[in-house]
């Protein structure tokens, strides 16, 4: 029986695209995190640039707007000496009716070496990876509700930085899990890295019971969800969910699931608080907690650049 090969890996098991954390070998994840450690110090040097991707063209294709994620990819690529081309696709070719694959074919003719893709449709980066030339690499920068693997990896880097070992941890992910590609990528990564206790915390409308199939503990009560946790990952409450009758009001949500100092006190005393940003103060997280000493939200941003440098240089160095 032949196994269908993971499209992210070449015949030697090396990473050539980053499309999803699901199905990645544990060693590949650790290798990226180790490499990111090397790059973290590059951002602190007098010259914040290394020549690994010199002469390569990285195209940022954002079919969905995200200034922050696009900027961190742009900084990461530039610190690797790549030429970065930002395409605000949402407002250009697709608006004129061009198909996704025609857009990619056109950009490939401009000799792109790497595509960083953010798309509203789950699976779009897979489709692109299947159609690019053999030397071209694809990074998923978020597709629909499916995956946001670089965010997942930077979250793992953050946890490893503060907690060292994954195999004894309790990690609570709080908020809109069902619509969150960050939560999905985090859950896959935590599972692969051997975290024994992963909790999905939130109201029934945002944390449905069938999430248990992913191997997580579902908690509709915040007190139970954060009790004795080592890591609390807060998710942004997306305003558009409020209107769809999924939630009563921002105030009500904060009362039940907002992270306050009082609720944080239920976690372990050395627990860290994470958030992928942008944060909504007073909706999912209290200002005192976001700015408090257990918050690692800003270090996550710095780690994110190093992790994206690690991903881009790793896949660019592996032959397809």
């Amino acid at each position, binding site marked *: 029986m032949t196994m269908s090969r993971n499209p992210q890996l070449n015949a030697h098991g*090396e990473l050539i695209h980053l499309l999803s954390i699901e199905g990645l070998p544990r060693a590949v994840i650790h*290798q990226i995190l*180790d*490499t990111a*450690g*090397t790059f973290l*110090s*590059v951002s602190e*040097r*007098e*010259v914040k*640039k*290394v*020549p*690994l991707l010199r002469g390569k063209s990285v195209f940022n294709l954002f079919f969905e707007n995200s200034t922050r994620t696009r900027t961190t990819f742009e900084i990461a690529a530039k610190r690797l000496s790549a030429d970065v081309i930002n395409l605000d696709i949402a407002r250009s070719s697709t608006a004129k009716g061009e198909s996704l694959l025609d857009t990619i074919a056109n950009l490939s003719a401009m000799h792109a070496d790497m595509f960083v893709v953010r798309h509203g449709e789950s699976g779009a980066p897979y489709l692109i990876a299947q159609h690019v030339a053999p030397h071209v690499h694809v990074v998923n920068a978020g597709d629909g509700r499916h995956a946001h693997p670089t965010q997942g990896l930077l979250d793992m880097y953050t946890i490893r930085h503060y907690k060292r070992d994954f195999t004894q941890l309790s990690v609570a992910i709080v908020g809109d899990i069902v619509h969150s590609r960050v939560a999905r990528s985090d859950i896959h990564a935590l599972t692969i890295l051997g975290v024994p206790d992963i909790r999905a915390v939130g109201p029934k409308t945002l944390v449905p019971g069938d999430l248990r199939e992913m191997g997580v503990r579902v908690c509709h009560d915040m007190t139970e969800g954060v009790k004795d946790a080592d890591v609390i990952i807060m998710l942004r409450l997306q305003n558009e969910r409020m209107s769809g009758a999924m939630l009563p009001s921002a105030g009500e949500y904060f009362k039940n699931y907002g992270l306050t100092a009082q609720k944080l006190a239920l976690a372990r005393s050395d627990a860290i608080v994470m958030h992928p940003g942008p944060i909504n103060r007073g909706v999912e997280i209290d200002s005192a907690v976001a700015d408090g000493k257990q918050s690692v939200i800003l270090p996550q941003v710095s780690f994110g650049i190093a992790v994206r440098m690690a991903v881009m*240089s*790793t896949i660019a*160095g*592996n*032959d397809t």
Partner: protein
Amino acid sequence: MTPLLLDAEALYAQLREGLRPMLRADSAIVGIWSGGAWLAERLQRDLGLPGPHGVISSTLHRDDFGERGLVAKADPTHLPFSVEGRPIVLVDDVLYTGRTIRAVINELFDFGRPASVALAVLVDRGGRELPIEAAYAAARISLPPTQRLSLAHDASGHFVFDIENKTA
């Protein structure tokens, strides 16, 4: 392994004494990962130099990234002092093509502008592909390209040389 009479400990003693006249009061020793880093650590101690030694990696400036990809196993560069205006002595176990030295000089300059950069090695094995020379080499030998020479530790922590015959 082919037996070769390279006594790493004896060569280390020669390197240590050869380095003394090269050092100024404000010199900093920087070992090239990995063999050179072990040498630098021991030289710093044996020569009684103040402060920490540095470790530098060629990984981020290698010229064979296109063929070999990223070598993730290497420790990152760690220079726990300012290189600006300092005389830097790079230390390595083996000098061969000179490509590693070219890469670490680029790496070094990413941290500032040293007053000078010199190179001291245990063994110069010939085979240079770039115009790079060591100011001090404890031994100069000639090895065929099929042999790979590198510093290692034996069970008691003494320096020894590993020689591998490369299989094409």
